[in-house]
């Protein structure tokens, strides 16, 4: 019995305008606790550097032309590079300059989730689930031999689940209108779009997965073929009429 006990930590942190929760499992609790502290510090730093709500953040200043990329913290160039990759791969459906303003938020949160998860894994976590406002990075397993099980919120029926995803070493990101209203802009017009109720994308890392979920949501039904064409990514789309469609490899749990 004791050897089956799962040890770990849970933590909730209010940062980046949302709630991050950590579920970290592993035997070395002091090491996990230190890594958790580091991960939380990292999230606050990412917020300071990237927040578009803070006029003094590096990204805000860069957007206003008050500084140049070379003078920003190195992670800014890294993130903007990933943003450009996401924009290229999505044929422009993801954009970090919606409406002409520099706003890498659609990728930053996922990137921060991924970076936080990496710290936990390096500290020896046997499994970790980092959830940033409903976007997740899963590492390892929930317990020995048991993959993580992640519910996908039903965007049309609050509190219910539309599907359950299970997997190891997986990122799950959902973009939708249910929680926060219209917040995805058509990068070409700068206006809100909502052909879908939600788009969930799974992939290896939360950074690009988060961006691809945003792109898929903006793209609408055509996103299914697009995501299916990407190596390592799968999608579940839920229409405003409640119909669902997913790519053949979507890691839906059970039958």
């Amino acid at each position, binding site marked *: 019995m004791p050897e*089956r006990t799962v040890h770990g930590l849970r933590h909730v942190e*209010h940062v980046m305008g949302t709630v991050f929760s950590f579920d970290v499992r592993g035997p070395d609790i002091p090491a996990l606790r230190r890594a958790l502290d580091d991960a939380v510090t990292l999230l606050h730093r990412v917020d300071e550097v990237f927040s578009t709500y803070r006029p003094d953040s590096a990204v805000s200043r860069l957007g206003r032309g008050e500084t140049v990329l070379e003078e920003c913290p190195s992670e800014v160039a890294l993130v903007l590079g990933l943003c450009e990759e996401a924009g290229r791969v999505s044929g422009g459906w993801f954009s970090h300059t919606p409406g002409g303003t520099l706003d890498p938020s659609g990728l930053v949160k996922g990137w921060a989730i991924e970076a936080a998860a990496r710290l936990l894994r390096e500290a020896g976590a046997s499994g970790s689930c980092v959830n940033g406002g409903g976007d997740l990075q899963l590492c390892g397993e929930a317990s020995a031999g048991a993959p993580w*099980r*992640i519910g996908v919120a039903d965007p049309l029926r*609050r*509190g219910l689940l539309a599907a359950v995803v299970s997997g190891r070493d997986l990122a799950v990101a959902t973009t939708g209108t249910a929680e*926060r209203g219209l917040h995805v802009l058509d990068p070409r017009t700068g206006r809100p779009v909502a052909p879908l109720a939600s788009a969930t994308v799974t992939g290896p890392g939360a950074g690009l997965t988060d961006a691809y979920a945003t792109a898929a949501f903006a793209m609408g039904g055509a996103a299914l073929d697009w995501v299916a064409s990407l190596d390592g990514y799968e999608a579940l789309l839920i229409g405003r009429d409640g119909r669902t469609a997913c790519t053949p490899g979507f890691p839906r749990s059970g039958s």
Partner: protein
Amino acid sequence: MRRAVLATASTSALVVSLLLLKPHQSGAPQTPSPSPRGNGTPAAPAHRTGTFAGDPVDTRYGTVRVAAVVNQGRLTAVKVLETPSANGRDRQIAADAVPRLTREALAAQSAHIDAVSGASYTSEGYVRSLQSALDRAGA
């Protein structure tokens, strides 16, 4: 900023989440044991039945307090004992958020899942109060 949520005003540092509401009846202990709650000794109380009040938790919008209705260690309902009611907006936020959280808590448990994608769990006051109730229930 439009956020119909209950949220704590301060930067939080909490060792709780809705995900702790998983049932324990599966045999294999799946919930990690945060050190404040003991380190996995087999002294966990037998599955209990009853209504367990949580701690009152102050939020930006007022005090939230809930009780967990537990049947043999399983969360079956959440009773709201106190929600923000200072003004119409607070009441509206509570009226919207609390039933949603209750459904989410119950849905999460019945589906036996570790987390939810696509939902922003910003209602920490609710979660904290519910967690303290569940701690009391030994659920």
